[in-house]
């Protein structure tokens, strides 16, 4: 039985074709084969959330998926949140402006999780934010500044929407 397989997938809008060991996790594939080291490993058993990415538009623990399972998938990682001109995603701005990170290790997972939250629920209250965040562990911040960042990002998105009268458009690559 072959220990390697060929996979084809899209990551942050770019297509890749690679041969991977069948036991390689998607997290390790992204980090080691694609050199996108922004996705972090904190536990490798699905609890800490630092490895959270978007798979076909939905958050997933990349440490609990095999790279071979991502054949044909559309993946977004923290590196893919930037706009094409290099501008940071509004959630990244909100985290930065609200001191929503200290050591930065949990941040990639936090960003993906909170971006998904605002997609599903553009105006969450603090309790809803905390419930959603409860699957992402942070040891540094005590979560308050992260909650503040999400509230700020939601408020800003609402005011942009109010101003322009249109729903906030996603990037041309269909990113969040």
């Amino acid at each position, binding site marked *: 039985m072959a220990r390697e397989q060929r996979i084809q997938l899209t990551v942050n809008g770019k297509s890749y074709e690679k041969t991977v060991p069948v036991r390689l996790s998607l997290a390790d594939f992204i980090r080691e084969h694609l050199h996108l080291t922004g996705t972090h490993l*904190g536990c490798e058993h699905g609890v800490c959330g*630092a490895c959270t990415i978007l798979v076909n538009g939905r958050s997933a623990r990349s440490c609990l998926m095999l790279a071979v399972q991502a054949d044909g998938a559309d993946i977004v990682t923290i590196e893919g949140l930037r706009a094409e001109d290099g501008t940071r995603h509004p959630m990244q701005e909100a985290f930065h402006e609200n001191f929503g990170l200290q050591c930065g290790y949990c941040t990639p997972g936090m960003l993906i999780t909170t971006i998904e939250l605002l997609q599903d629920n553009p105006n969450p209250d603090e309790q809803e934010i905390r419930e959603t965040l409860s699957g992402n562990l942070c040891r540094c911040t005590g979560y308050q500044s992260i909650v503040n960042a999400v509230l700020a990002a939601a408020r800003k998105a609402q005011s942009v929407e109010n101003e322009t009268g249109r729903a906030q458009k996603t990037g041309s690559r269909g990113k969040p």
Partner: protein
Amino acid sequence: MSDARFVNLRIVGTSVLPDEAIPLVEGEGRFVNDIRLPGMYHVAFLRSQHAHARLRSVDTNRAQELPGVVKVLTGKELLGKVEPFRSMPNRFSGGESVQHWLAVDKVRFCGEAICAVVAEDRATAEDAAELIEVDYEPLPAVTDPRLGERDDAPLVHDTCPNNYLIKREYQRGNVDEAFGSAHLVVKRKFRIGRKQALCLEPRGCVAAYRDSTFVLTMWMSHQLPYVVRHYVAKHLRLPENDVRVVAADTGGGFGQKASIYPEEFVCAYLALGLRRPVKWVEDRLENMVASTHARDQYIEIEIAADRDGRILALSSDVWVDVGAYSTYLWSAGMEPLQTAGLMPGPYKVAAMRYRTRGVATNKTPVGPYRAVGRPSASASLELLLDEVARRLKLDPAEMRRRNLIPIESMPYRNANNLVHDNVNYLPCLKLSTAKIDYERLRAEQRELSAGGKLRGIGVACFAELTGLGTTTAVGPGTLLQPGRDAVTLRLETTGVLTIAAALPSQGQRIMMAMRQVAVDELGIGLSDTNCLTNDTAMAPYGFGTFASRTAVFGSGAVIQAAKELRRRILALGAFLLKVSADDLTIVNSVIQTVDRSKSMPLREMAEKSYFSAKDIPQELNPGFEVTSFYDPKLGSFAAGAHIAVVDVDPQTGDVKIIRYVASEDVGTMINPAVVEGQIIGGIAQGIGEALLEELVYDENGQPRTVTLADYLIPTALEIPRIELHHANTPSAALGGFKGCGEGSTTGAVAAVACAVADALNQRGGDIHEFPATPERVLKGLGVLT
């Protein structure tokens, strides 16, 4: 630096956005596991499955034959080639413990490293580790320090009778008389469970041979790059200058990454021997057993009080389960000596006595972790104060008020020989009680109690000694005295200011803090400042980041160095502009006369200094690089008063924190948002300690909490919105700065513990074992037996 000539807005005290955070928020951090070097090998360790055993044989043949395996290193191979870790000398040491980097004859804790497997990838290294055959001869394990100190207990180290790695007795003041004449004497026993820092990023290193101009370069997830360099060079017998240590972006440290461990040293040895880069990343299963643990104390504490609730004397007996080895660097003395020695906290204690022991057991070694002995000591004392208050029918906040050291008494030497000065404890308490509307809170509690609800209120005050200079020991009894650190300020050829210090950040934004101070001291624009903090090749010698010291040391050294640098800049500026130095100021990176008639950008002056030196008299061009060592001599006391309000579910034992108010004195704040992040982060860890976190071992020394599904740290739902207030008093250190980050953990553990006990007390219940798990709460209520 007062000065009407400075027209810049002072930025110390403003929450400037730290641009050092930008790479992190973009996913462009460089943590150890992100580093890849050509030809790099990967290391996995085979770890002991027994708590205590003789190693009869270690057969690595099958492992070595696995394709992709480069080498399997055993402890025997290292014998004679490297020096094992002999426990750091400590005045209160019970005996020497010797820790081989890889176990040779014996293993002494589950998780102790036995072999290092080097392979082309980590998965193969793990495959090979499974093929190593170890013949263990199990030995009886010591798992309880109170049993371990008995004469009939098995010995963890033959050189440590009664398994004492640390032992100290202390007395000051007339303790017996105080107890004899007291109106009230209360004694309690407390048990504080074992914890660990649980950094989101476990440990790791990359060791490289001749990667650049250095023989050995190590990238590490670590807080003390220079200290590591010293010991690596010493143990591997390399000239210190041949070694470069870089603290990579580090995903949390909290003291766990301030110890010296065997694994990274093994990697250094392998890199030199194989002449290839070698990477080891600690996975979470390893981290749960291989990185230092914390707390794990049995505390018996007795208080003598007068009829007004004033403390006359304290007496305590402390046992700490310090694990199998006296950790390298800080020794096993940290928890035992601090728990007992720092017990008085911010309260006036005229007489005290203690007996404390660090007893070796067959568990993971205990090392420093955020606030070390203070949280457990504070929780014990605060719980005891509440008990005294109950018996004397005094309000708990009033109890604190009567006992806090008042500023009028300062400098005040407490019974533990610490001098309190430049700190004001009472305003913190006053602020917290005012902000939470304490009287109404107590009234509400009484109403709710009448209706059968269990609401608890915990008031805790703490003193935190930060920024310790050479006269105060960080690790009591140790020879390591990290009381001074240095900063180099250098104006580069482009006029940019480099601030170099061996003070790496794990998120505390030390770089931003030092830059803010430099801006205020020099008048240089913020965007013209840059920091180098993580690299021994780029900064002067420094001990690193721990014990809430970087604000004091980094800033103090910047202030000192800036004074001289400014003098040189103005002297050369005076020459170049043909004015008197007294007429000059620096505003936004421009040297200018006060009336602005003449000016020169710093950039231009720097260029002239470097490239047109022949046009400048030598005495005016001594070089724009100033290194200054700063020793604040004493420590600076920070303080706080925390009030936690909890609701306890009497059916499930669940504890919910419904309100949390914290008032703190952290001296002059450099960047308030960063400070608040540190305080809230510290409170979060304290809440975890008080309610959730515990490392459990069975009677054979087998760890039972081995994944993140077992060891529970708080999530966003367990931490309430913290209401933070400030009652700052500048310290006597340069700039008036104090450290922060640890005191809040102390305050939180104590406040939450007291709140839970207070809730149970509504029904005559009590609790003395922490974390206050739902089961312990129900037992405390008498619902479960």
